[in-house]
Each structure stands twice: as C-alpha cells, then as structure tokens.
C-alpha cells in the first residue's frame, strides 16, 4: 500500500541545494506574454489560411426553435457555411463513450431544436474573415416557441432538495446545543451569480492533417478535452492532438470544453481548412458556466466565554436543469471550528439558467462570506475580539471526524497577521474613527481551503547540450506552472534555470490532471520531481557505467548534480559531455505521482488570516479598501513571486465579491443583466489600495513528496468577509446580501441615522 510515509526520504526539492525552490523567479513565459507574442489558442498560426466561425446565441431561455432562415446569412459576402441544428454535421449522441475509459463523453453542438438556456449556441457562421462571419451571424433569423423560463432562484428555495447522493451531516444534536446556548447568532447571507470573466474568452483553432485533428484550445484540463472531442467526432482518441499552450485565465470556467472547440473541429473537417472559433465577451457570460447564487443560513450557539456549543451552516443554491453541480458552500466549515454539535448541508434547485460550475475556491469563496461574518457578529455579541474568538474555537483534531490535521498553522496566521497589520489599533465599537469624509474600520476573517493531490505523470529529457526538457500534459492558466516546473527541474538535475525547457499543454505528453482545485503545482510538480529523480538515477548509472567517464566505476548513489556538472567527489564532467558522448540522442525518462492510500487519514487544508481596513463614505455608502494583508500557511512555497501573485489575486477576487461583482437574472427572459466588462464589475486598480500577502514557513510532509500545498484558491477564501467585517467596524452596518453596493449600504446608514 502506498503511504505518505513513502515521501519521507530526502529529495532534491527538500534539500534545495542551489536554493531555486522558493526563489521569486520571474515567469518562464513572462517575456512572451508582455510582448504579446505568446500564441493563445485563437492566435496560433495554422499551416494554411484559416476560416473564421462566429456563433449565434439563443434569444430565449427555454423552448424550441420553430423556424430557421439562413438565406440572408448565406448570401452575406465572404460567408462559407451556415449551420443550425437542421444541417450541422452528425456527431455522436450526447454522453457517448465509444472508448470506455474516455474521461469525457460526446458533447455535440447544435444538437437539436431544444433550448436549455439563454445564449445557448444555436447557429454557426463560418466566413473568410471574422468580419464576414460576424456580419453573417447577425443575419441568421430564428423563430422560437418559448416556454416560460423557470429561473427565479429566490422564489424556488422551497423546492430545493439535497443534491443527489448527499445527506446533511450532523454530529451531536445541533438543535439542542443551539437552543441551550446563551449566546446565539442566526442570520442568512446571499451571494449572486458570478461570471469568471477570464481575460481570454474561450477560443479554438483547429485543422486536420490527414485523419488527425490538431486542436488548439483554451482549456484547464487536457485529457477530458481531447477525449470529449474525439468522442463527439467519432474519432479514435489518438487521432485528436489537443494543445493548450497559453491560457488567459481559467478560474474553473475552462475546466470543460464548449462549443467553440466542437464547432471549429466540425467546420475544419467540412471545409478542409483550418477554422478558428471564439466566444465573444458577451457570449462568455451566458455561453459558459458561472458560480451560482447562494442563500446561506449560519447558526452559532456559544457559551459566554466564546466556545461554540453548536454550529450549523446550510446552503441553498442552483444548477442547470440538466446538470448536477452543487456549490458546496457549507463543506469547508466542517473542518474549521470546534463545536460538539454540528449540522451542515446543501439544498439544490434546478433552473433554466446556463450551467453552474466551479469558480476559484468553489464552496469556500461563497461560504466564508457567510460563516466568517457570522463569527464577527458572534464576537461582537460576546464582547470578544474576533481573532480571540477564533483562537478559542481552534480544534485539536478535525472537528467533524476527529482525524489529525496534517499541519494546521491557522492560529499562527491569525496572530502574525494581527501583529503585522496593527490590529490592536482597531476599536471594537463601530463608527468611531473618522478621517475626512471617511469612516474607517478594520475587519478580519479566516481563510481555509482544502488541499489535494491527483495522479500525474511527467517526462524529463536531457539532450547532448545538457538541456533538460520537461514534458507534461499539464496547463498553465496564468498561475506559474511553467515557472515552477522549470525550478523543480533545474533544482533536481542541478542545472541552471536557463538550461531547462518546459513544454506543457499537449495531449501527447505524459498526462497530468491540469489546473483546478489548487492541486496543480503540487500534483504536476510532484510528478516532475519523480521524473527528475528517475533521470538522475539514469544519468548516474550512465556515467558510472561509461568507461570514458571520469565517474566510471563509482556508485550511482554517490553522484552529485550541480551547476550542470556531475561528480563523485573530485571526479567530474559536465552533463553535456556525458550525454553527447554516451547518449547523443538524449535520454528520456518518466516519473509518476499517485495519491497515497492513507492520505485521507489526515485532515489536510491550507489556511490563512485576512486583515482589511476600509473607508466608508457615510454620505453615499461608497466603500474603499484602504489596505489589506493576508498571512497564509500553505506548505512549502515553490516560487515566492508566483505564489504571492496567486494569493493577492485571490484577495482581489474576494474584494470584488464583497463590493462589486455579481450578475442578476432578469426572470422574465432568463438572461443575465450584465453582459460585458463595463457592466460586470470586477475590481479595478483603484478599488484595491495597499495589498500584501505573507507566506509562513511550512512543509506539510503528508501533502506530497515536496511538502507543497496549493495557493491558487486560498487567497479568496475569507477575503470578502474581512472586507464586510471592516465595513461593519467602520460604520456599524451589516449588509448580508452581496455585493455590498452603495445603495444597500446607504439604506443601512440611513436606518442608523447616519
């Protein structure tokens, strides 16, 4: 049985002899990105001139297409092909898995006359130019028989049921514990639909080389995209070569493929030439998944000393009629605070809205906006400092299942944050600090996010120049994967960073699960470490067995790797000289990581504490974040710069969730009101103020052989709650319906007589 104890022996990442691990190394692909020369999927140069496809979205949310008139679209100059469900090429029925081990089934586009959500792609126009195709797309005329869309989440809470296969989890007797508690909080919070708003919309460039389909697309996970496309087209999986080299943000929204990929492939096949298809910014809002809205009830029952007796968090949320995604906003709370009586669960209602799906820190991002504010309310009722309240409820072991924590430095994060931020200057009574126009307040919140490890492989090649090439079916969605893989390779083989090449995002490379759930660096990196160690062994054996090598006759285990030189004590040669002589074609090995079978014996998370100072204009209800600090414990940090960027990026996400971001459903039409980036308000520079993230020293030896954990999602867990709590401290108003926009805050300010 594989065990986390197998990871105990020393390895080059732990030894970190050249100090590359953790170093704030610049982005591997940074120069390409800042010079605009990184070819994103839509910009890939195909071997011959491409045609351009533009999709048309449904104008209703539920019903059928009853009439199709494409004559004018077809007659538009430059238009090559116009497809609707009536004339689209045949595709395998939805869900088909001709190959039983495919990681995704068929996902046909333009499948039928049925409309499942507003904006669903219902036609494709391919033209000689993007302009011609766009003009043609405007000329496609469809008529519909619309059903009344069932889209009103708040009006549907009564019909929400437990997600299939899930039950509420109760420990002890929550109701008894709650009712017998002298101090209680029972409040409900609401969060809106959020859109991912990646800088790069979903896009694909596809062509065929003989029978083989070459598909460049923007996707977080390579294998399911490759398999899903092959299944849809009815091709053997090896006949689809899927590439995703540069990705302009994913955030969970590109964990699945969309119709751009399928339609580009179908059109490339039909036209016999490369085809590019991209979603427009407007189409992204409805055409791809979103974070669903939630209603969250938190009940806390405490003793007068602050210890929790009873804790409950129930979440209501929604997903698409045909879907089964649940925003598990209550889950994280199961591992957070001690309380003998606990009740958590979810209720799900299916609606005629576009697909709900994961978005950066699914669950935590929404859930902390409720629980961490409830804790703030409890602290106030108790007359206790919010930091102290959390420390008093710090559990010894996982409060739900009693498992030991692999590593839990939450209290250290909170204490360190309080000290660095100057938390002692916070006045517990709200509304007392004024600076000019602004009422100023401070708030804090806990961050927590699970840590995961998935199976992955990786290959390392050393060539005759002593250059190491890392190959992995991994993705870099802007997080820094290229960079940390290069660091791990350089450190493991003892070569300078400049002697490492990283090639990822390719279905023909050893598979890795991709980017998501903040498992990317730990998973891909651990496979890379394994490959690197295997290559060390192979090189050591090659050298010690090669009569021409000064290392000949030595023991492979004694070989050291540093500065591109291999040595056994004073006997040495360069890696390049060995390989060019003894293996001039290069040497390639694979490595692999698998989750340890006993890993679940530990409760494993990443942690942090957020501290925030805001100004509230009591006249207008405007809020400005003045400064914010997060202190995080997330295992060994591979790259201080890219990790910090992930964490601060997450914190900014939290600020957006607290103050500006959200989309509302027009229940008459089943559509979202904000359809571009001028209307959907993600934070801008001026919203952020002074922002910093600090990472504590940590190595979690139960996580993986490197002791690293994820940071990509931790930063936005709790961040928004710290903002909301700071608003309360500034002005004494609690808004429990996110985002906290001026209109909502103003109502509270007026009610308070401010």
């Amino acid at each position, binding site marked *: 049985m594989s065990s986390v104890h197998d990871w105990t022996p020393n390895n080059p990442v732990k030894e970190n002899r050249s100090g590359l691990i953790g170093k704030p190394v610049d982005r591997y692909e940074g120069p390409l990105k800042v010079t605009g020369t990184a070819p994103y999927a839509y910009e890939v140069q195909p071997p011959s001139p491409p045609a351009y496809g533009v999709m048309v979205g449904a*104008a209703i949310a539920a019903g059928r297409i009853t009439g199709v008139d494409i004559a004018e679209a077809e007659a538009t*100059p430059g238009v090559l092909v116009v497809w609707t469900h009536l004339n689209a090429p045949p595709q395998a029925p939805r869900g088909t898995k001709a190959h039983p081990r495919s990681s995704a089934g068929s996902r046909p586009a333009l499948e039928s006359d049925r409309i499942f959500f*507003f904006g669903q792609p219902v036609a494709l126009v391919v033209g000689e130019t993007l*302009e011609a195709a*766009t*003009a043609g797309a*405007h000329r496609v005329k469809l008529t519909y028989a619309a059903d009344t869309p069932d889209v009103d989440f708040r009006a549907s809470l009564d019909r929400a049921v437990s997600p299939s296969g899930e039950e509420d989890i109760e420990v002890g007797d929550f109701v008894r514990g709650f009712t017998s508690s002298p101090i209680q909080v029972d409040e409900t919070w609401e969060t809106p639909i959020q859109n991912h708003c990646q800088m790069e919309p979903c896009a694909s460039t596809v062509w065929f080389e003989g029978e083989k389909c070459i598909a460049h697309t923007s996707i977080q996970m390579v294998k399911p995209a490759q398999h899903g496309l092959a299944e849809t087209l009815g091709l053997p999986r090896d006949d689809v070569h899927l590439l995703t080299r540069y990705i302009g943000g994913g955030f969970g929204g590109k964990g699945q493929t969309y119709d751009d990929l399928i339609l580009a492939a179908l059109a490339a096949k039909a036209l016999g030439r490369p085809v590019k298809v991209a979603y427009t910014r*407007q189409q992204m809002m409805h055409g791809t998944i979103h974070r669903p809205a939630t209603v969250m009830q938190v009940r806390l029952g405490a003793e007068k000393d602050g210890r929790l007796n009873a804790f409950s968090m129930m979440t209501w949320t929604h997903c698409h009629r045909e879907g089964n995604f649940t925003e598990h906003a209550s889950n994280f709370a199961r591992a957070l605070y001690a309380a003998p009586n606990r009740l958590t669960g979810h209720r799900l209602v299916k609606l005629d809205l576009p697909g709900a799906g994961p978005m950066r820190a699914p669950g935590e991002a929404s859930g902390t906006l409720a629980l961490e504010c409830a804790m703030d309310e409890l602290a106030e009722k108790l007359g206790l400092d919010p930091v102290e309240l959390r420390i008093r409820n710090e559990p010894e072991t996982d409060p739900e299942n009693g498992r030991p924590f692999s590593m839990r430095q939450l209290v250290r994060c909170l204490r360190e944050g309080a000290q660095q931020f100057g938390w002692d200057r916070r006045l517990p009574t709200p509304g007392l600090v004024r600076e000019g126009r602004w009422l100023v307040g401070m708030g804090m919140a806990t961050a927590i996010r699970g840590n995961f490890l998935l199976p992955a492989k990786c290959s390392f090649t050393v060539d005759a120049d002593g250059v190491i090439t890392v190959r992995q079916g991994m993705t870099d969605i802007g997080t820094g994967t290229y960079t940390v893989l290069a660091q791990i390779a350089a450190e493991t083989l003892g070569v300078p960073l400049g002697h490492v090449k990283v090639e990822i995002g390719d279905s023909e490379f050893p598979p890795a699960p991709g980017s998501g759930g903040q498992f990317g660096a730990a998973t891909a990196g651990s496979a890379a470490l394994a490959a690197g160690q295997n290559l060390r062994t192979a090189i050591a054996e090659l050298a010690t067995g090669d009569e021409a090598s000064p290392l000949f006759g030595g023991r492979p285990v004694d070989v050291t790797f540093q500065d591109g030189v291999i040595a056994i004590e004073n006997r040495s040669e360069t890696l390049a000289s060995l390989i060019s002589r003894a293996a001039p074609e290069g040497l390639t090995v694979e490595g692999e990581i698998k989750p340890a079978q006993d890993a679940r014996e530990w409760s494993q998370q990443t942690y942090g504490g957020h501290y925030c100072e805001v100004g509230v204009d009591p*006249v*207008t*209800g*405007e809020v*400005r974040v003045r400064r914010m600090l997060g202190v995080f414990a997330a295992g060994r940090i591979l790259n201080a710069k890219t990790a910090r960027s992930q964490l601060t990026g997450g914190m900014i996400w939290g600020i957006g969730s607290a*103050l*500006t971001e959200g989309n*509302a459903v*027009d229940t*008459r*039409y089943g*559509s979202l*009101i*904000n*359809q*571009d980036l*001028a*209307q959907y*308000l993600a*934070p*801008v*520079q*001026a*919203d952020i103020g002074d922002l910093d993230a600090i990472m504590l020293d940590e190595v979690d030896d139960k996580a993986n052989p490197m002791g690293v954990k994820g940071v990509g999602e931790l930063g936005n867990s709790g961040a928004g709650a710290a903002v909301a709590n700071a608003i309360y401290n500034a002005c004494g108003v609690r808004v429990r319906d996110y*985002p906290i*926009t*001026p*209109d909502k805050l*103003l*109502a509270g300010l*007026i009610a308070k007589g401010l």
Partner: protein
Amino acid sequence: MRAFTYERAGDAKAAVKAAASTPGARFIAGGTNLLDLMKLEIETPAHLIDVSRLNMATIEATLDGGLRIGAATSNSTVAADPQVRARYPVLSQAIVAGGSPQLRNKASVGGNLLQRTRCAYFYDTSKPCNKRAPRTGCSALEGLNRNAAIFGATDHCIATHTSDMAVALTALGANVETLMPSGQSRTLPMLVLHRLPGETPEIETCLETGELITAVVLPPPPPGGQIYRKVRDRASYAGGLASVAVAGRQVALGMVAHKPWRASAVETALASGASPAEAIAVELEGASPLGRNDFKLPLVARLAAAAISEANGRGA
C-alpha cells in the same frame, strides 16, 4: 457589424455637406461609443465621416472671459488643460471621473456629449427597447432598472444620460456651437441640446440630421467654489449611480434623467436662502422613482447637499 464606407472630412463645411448628401451617414470622432454599438449592430451607419482630425481641437479664451473648446479636443486634453483646471475645476473633475485613461485619450468632446445610454437592455439586442428599436417596448420599465432615471422619464424610456462631462458643462451654463447641414452655424445652450424621452426616446438631441458640433463655449466661471462628485459601484471605470456638479450656486445632477439635469429648483431655493439640504429636497419633490431605483432619492439628496456645502465652503 454592417459594411460601411468611410471618409475623412477635409473641413467642417465639407463634413456637414457629406453628411447631408449621403444617406445613412454618421460622424465618427474617437469611436469609443459608436464602434462598440456598430459591432453589436445597435448602430448601423452606411457611411462614416471622420471628424476627429478637423481643425476643431483647440482650447482658446473668449473675449468675454470664457473658454471655447473645440469639439474634437480629447477628453484628456480638456481635463489637463491649465485654464480648465484653474478656472473650471468642476469640468476637469467630471471628465476624469468618467471611463478610463485609454477611453478619455480617445474620446472627443463632441462624441462625449452624444454618447448613448448604458441601459443594459439597450445593449442586449434580443430584448425590446424603444430607444434602439422604436415602438418595441421598454424592457427596463419592469426589469432590472436599479440605475433608471428619477426625473423626466416616461413609460417609453427610463434610461439615463451617462456623460459626466455634460453634467459639469450643464452646471457651468455652457453653450454648444454647431454647423448645420445648410452651412449655417448656431449656438445652443446645454440645457436644450438633449431631450427628455417623451414618446420618442430614439431622438436624443435637438440636433438636425447631419448637424456637426464644432465647439463648446464656457461663459466666465460663476463666483463660488466648484466641485464634481460621482457615486459609482467601483472606484473607477464605471458609470455613475448619481453625480452632482456644483459651480457656485449653479447645480446640475447626473445619471438621474435622460439628459444632464440642471437643478433649477435647487438654485432658486438657494437664492432664497434655503440650506443645501432644503434646496435639494425641493428638487426631489419632482422625482418619480420606480422601486429599484428608490435609493437615488436619498443618495442624490445627501450627495448634492454635501457637495453644495463643500463647494460653497471652499469658494463662496
């Protein structure tokens, strides 16, 4: 986008002549509004006449002590102009409260005045909208209309005018100079340039088809302090929920009506000795909110009272 033809006008006269003689012609300046609308086929001009390079981009003092700003001057240039900053700070503040630096660099004074509403239903071409498609209905009326007008709206349209610059110009009592298709020029007060929606919200100004804005003329600044305050959902790069421009005792409100709203009731009340809060309360008696935008009443009341007090504390 529909196919269109394009010409760069040689001078203002040629521009209006071309506009008068070419069916479906439109002027284009920075293009920051028009091109977005063309991409969505909300606007479908057959011919564009580029007026951004006409000789209309100067800022010069007028004989009466005012300032004449050419219509092709970029928003950034106006905001940064030393004379504007020294004597018309409300205008400078209003411009920098709008859009982003990139937009302001490209946007012209004329285009800014004629920018179209940001009503979300106007942009979503799958929805009825009287302004975009006359007599199809107004989706906002019973829709998500949090940012709708509180003054002068009708059941035909409840959208607001979203220019910040125009609010300051209205408070300053600016005039707009134009060249008509006939070759005649005329001068229009800001107050009459934009229309209320009535039954024809698609008609937004009193300009004739093909009439070119050539300049904006500011009278000498009124005595008293000046200030522009805009409330928005994020700190920058967002349309306003409400704004107020104060120039001494002249006050205009933004994002509350289909046009920049000169708060004449406020001015009258102030003149007869009312406090800023009392004065704005009189103005708001004429407001008719719709439910989701009710918050604009207290918001405008508080914002305007604070801004008037601050401006007059500073200067008057």
